[in-house]
């Protein structure tokens, strides 16, 4: 699949229909997930209605980690096999990942205010998530500071790979430090600890976030490739 799509022409053909389909899937899942989460799922016996923030917070947290892992893979491919498409993929995923991380941070703060009585607490999970957000920003800043695209791609890929170290720290920070934040309840040894009535909407929303990411990625990669083509055509014309 990856090597099949590595050809830009084939990717353009694929993304031309895949992009809209992903977006449509995201729309359908949101259409199901949002009412399910906001209206039909039960309120928490402790937290009451505020628990509904979870349906945004948790998918955003998962996918901000997932997108970084995806960027790590794409960076490796870009570095080792010098696939420009992999570079574009990593570059285009980064702003989406940064946004998800930002959504996680903001929704977490909003959630924290009523439940923990504070907007922000410097515990391991929250701090390491903030660190991930800053790594995203650093990655984007490095990209935008280097004018030569090809070199920017390689350098940013090195940074991205180095930054992978942070992922396990975010993931396991809750277990290492005793913290305010929830430990993992879904992906943990011994099965999920979330009530099925909440698991349904949560997984639906997670799927919606995934397709939102995939669709946005397709569109922004297409734009990037088009922009590149236009630029090179313009330059070739100006030289002729």
């Amino acid at each position, binding site marked *: 699949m990856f090597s099949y799509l590595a050809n830009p022409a084939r990717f353009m053909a694929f993304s031309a229909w895949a992009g809209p389909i992903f977006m449509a899937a995201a729309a359908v899942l949101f259409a199901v997930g949002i009412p399910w989460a906001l209206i039909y799922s039960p309120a928490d016996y402790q937290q009451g209605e505020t628990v509904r923030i979870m349906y945004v917070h948790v998918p955003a947290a998962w996918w901000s980690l997932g997108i970084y892992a995806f960027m790590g893979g794409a960076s490796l491919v870009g570095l080792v096999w010098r696939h420009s498409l992999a570079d574009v993929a990593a570059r285009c995923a980064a702003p989406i990942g940064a946004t998800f991380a930002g959504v996680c941070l903001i929704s977490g703060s909003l959630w924290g205010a009523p439940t923990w009585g504070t907007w922000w607490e410097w515990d391991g999970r929250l701090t390491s998530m903030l660190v991930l957000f800053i790594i995203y920003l650093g990655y984007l800043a490095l990209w935008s500071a280097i004018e*030569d695209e090809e070199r920017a791609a390689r350098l940013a890929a090195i940074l991205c790979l180095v930054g992978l170290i942070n992922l396990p720290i975010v993931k396991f920070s809750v277990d290492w430090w005793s913290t305010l934040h929830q430990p993992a309840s879904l992906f943990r040894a011994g099965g999920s600890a979330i009530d099925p009535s909440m698991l349904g909407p949560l997984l639906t929303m997670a799927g919606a976030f995934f397709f939102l990411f995939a669709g946005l990625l397709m569109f922004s990669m297409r734009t990037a490739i088009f922009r590149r083509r236009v*630029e*090179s055509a313009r*330059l*070739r014309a100006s*030289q002729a």
Partner: protein
Amino acid sequence: MSGSGPFQDKMSLRVEQLSLSRGERLLARDLSFEVQAGSYVEIRGGNGTGKTTLLRAIGGYFRPREGRIVFEGVEEPSLALHYVGHLNGLKGGASVRSHLRYWAGLFGVVGEEENALQRLGLRAQADLPARVLSQGQSRRLALTRLVLAPRLLWLLDEPAAGLDAQGKAMLADLISAHCSAGGIALAAVHEPIGPTPTRVLTVGA
């Protein structure tokens, strides 16, 4: 090569269908040529036609868009070449002599420091920090690397820039001696710098 006699090995350099581009600009297309041991090749061409880019591609600094550069008789190209580019590679705070000592260590050679200073006429400046050297003196210092470590292939980018008449004569002698010892010198120049070129390569014509 001064003091170290003719090279034991012979190398040759073959460039095959090279295409070079910078940004979106295509500087060379399907460039092919071959250089035998003992040759001095002049690279000519107007400003911005790609002489520097070609030299940097041969030196391994710049990745060509297409084509190959083949070194024959050499295992690791980067250990068989010297590159003296537009930039001299000097640190203002370090003295002339400490530059030579550093380069000798970097290139893994010993003992030619005083000879190199002598050959390039920098004996009087040996203890000055590079920062206060004049333009031509800085260029001479960069050129000492050629004497310091014997290497088969010299890539010289306007090596005579800033040199006075005497400095140009020294450089011409160095190149002639190098080529008659079996080395190769490629120099990008705007005007002949002395030795009769084995061949003249014109880029971007």
